[in-house]
């Protein structure tokens, strides 16, 4: 069985026309319509079209097919949060220190992390 590319190449060898690289849409079409589509489209092909198709094909193949990756910045579902009741004494304990002076900036660490 011929691949799409080789089939198109064979049909085209007599006319010496430039074959556009099959893009994703063409792959999803049926065998017959895909072949026809390639042959039809070659009439209007330019170098830019070929490059664009190749570029789109590579992007789609290598990158877009991994859409199932988890988005690192996915939503945080606040409705899932069921915080425990906070004892008032804890709040009071923190409030005692609300006016404490923070002198953290008087010391730095030379370990490559920004301070």
């Amino acid at each position, binding site marked *: 069985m011929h691949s799409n590319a080789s089939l198109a190449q064979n049909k085209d060898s007599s006319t010496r026309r430039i074959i556009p690289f099959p893009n994703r849409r063409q792959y999803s079409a049926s065998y017959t319509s895909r072949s026809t589509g390639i042959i039809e489209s070659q009439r209007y092909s330019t170098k830019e079209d070929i490059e664009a198709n190749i570029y789109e094909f590579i992007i789609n193949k290598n990158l877009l097919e991994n859409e199932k990756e988890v988005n690192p910045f996915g939503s945080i579902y606040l409705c899932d949060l069921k915080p425990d009741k906070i004892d008032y004494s804890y709040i009071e304990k923190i409030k005692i220190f609300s006016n404490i002076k*923070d002198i953290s900036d008087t010391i730095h660490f030379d370990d490559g992390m920004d301070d």
Partner: protein
Amino acid sequence: MYTSIEKDALRQGDIISNTQLLGAINLKEISFINDYNNKKVRWQYNLSPEFGYAMVLSHSCEIAPENGVKLTSIILAPLRNIDTATDPKKIEELKKSNILSQEIGYSFLKYYFLDPVPEIEFANGSVVDFSKIYSLKKNSYEEVLSHKILQLQGSVVENIILKYSAYFYRSTGLIKI
């Protein structure tokens, strides 16, 4: 300061080793990959990943597997080597500031000192840095758990979280030192 490790669960105050340390995103460092229509379809950060120690700061209850890990993220903060402090004279003062005191009236609020221990390669101890907190998706739970090396006593965790809370709760406005 440290206690026996529960190997099947993460708890507040747990120390994680050899974990990727994440931080604030620098938009200028991001490069994008565009498709043919110039739509941004991927992004990448062109810097080497950094690995090190981190402490779990999420409340134990909220990341407990038996509670279904209620939060969507696990909050962590990196540990820093006390020996890299630029002003070694202040280290003793920093250690004492672990326990907040109204009488003293000042503290290194963004750090909590951790005693040296064989499991951590920082020979003279480390500090957890609350100003560099970051979070991981909760589906990282097992990965984080697999790197757990130490668990802190409950009383120590209480002091850490009091300082952590005070760091964020302190009065607004610029205070001249």
